[in-house]
């Protein structure tokens, strides 16, 4: 391979003693193709598909828990067991779900809350033992689509006030 040494400021390109090396004449210029590159990646996107829904149940007489796992499994404590057969609102019970679209060649981190509070007026209930999982839905070319499932345990107080309870939380995804 020819070896070239560029003399700064002189614009003269000097060659080593290679028979095939081009000789630059003073005042002449030389061009060479340079290279440029850029990488465009799919912008990470996240969309809510479903809320974390604990459904409808009757006030228990003792402190109780109702767990909706990230898998959708529902586990009540003893005092709420009878509520499993209670007619549910249209949205039913189930984990929160989000759709994540991102560049298929990249890794990412999804952040979910460790706990949250839902309220009805001045009455509150804590959701803790939050868990999540990522399920790959599609991986085609430069795009990958994941589903994030999030569950948790609702802590219900004895004689919890009747009402419609709700609360919000944030889920963030970040490219590594």
């Amino acid at each position, binding site marked *: 391979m020819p070896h070239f040494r560029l003399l700064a400021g002189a614009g003269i390109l000097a060659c080593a003693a290679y028979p095939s090396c081009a000789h630059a004449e003073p005042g002449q210029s030389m061009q060479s193709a340079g290279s440029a590159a850029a990488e465009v990646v799919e912008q990470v996107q996240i969309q809510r598909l479903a809320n974390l829904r604990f*459904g409808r*149940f*009757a006030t228990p007489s003792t402190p109780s828990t109702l767990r909706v796992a990230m898998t959708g499994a529902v586990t009540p404590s003893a005092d709420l067991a009878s509520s499993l057969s209670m007619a549910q609102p249209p949205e039913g019970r189930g984990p929160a779900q989000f759709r994540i679209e991102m560049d298929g060649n990249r890794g990412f981190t999804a952040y979910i809350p460790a706990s*949250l509070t839902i309220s009805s007026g001045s009455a509150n209930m804590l959701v803790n033992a939050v868990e999540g999982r990522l399920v790959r839905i599609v991986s085609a070319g430069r795009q990958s689509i994941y589903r994030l499932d999030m569950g948790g345990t609702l802590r*219900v107080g004895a004689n919890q006030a009747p009402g419609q309870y709700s609360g919000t939380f*944030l889920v963030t995804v*970040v490219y590594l």
Partner: protein
Amino acid sequence: MKKIALFAIAAAISTPAMAAPGDSATAQGAATAEVVAPITLTHTPNAALDFGTFTTGTTGGTVVVTQAGVATDTGDVTLVSGSTEAADAFTVAGDPGRSFSITTGSGTVANGSVTMAFTTSAPASGTLTGGAASFRVGGTLAVVGGAAAGTYTGSYNVTVAYN
């Protein structure tokens, strides 16, 4: 607020991933629950499923009390004149407008060592109109022929549950 991190690495990485700091997205989620008033069941004071006063005859039979409290005898059993029969009575309270199921069990009445079995009959369901409801329970007593005279008493279970 403490956060939990979930990691995902693309399965098919042909070239090392180039980190792009700051590229992120956030969505808001929600959690919901609906708490309703508990359902309560109260036995009306002094009410009872009363099969009345009757003779058993030698072969026995039955006494049937409807949910309206009307009694009939069958077989060798005869309700005596002046007998008073009645259906049992309960009240229910809970979430207004919600329906509930009613389940009643069977039981026995006893006088010392002598027992007679009975079954019950009640509505299958009710609705908490204005948050309240009531219902009555009838039944059928299997009378043992020649059973000793006396006052027979017993109990049975009743359960209500939101639908």
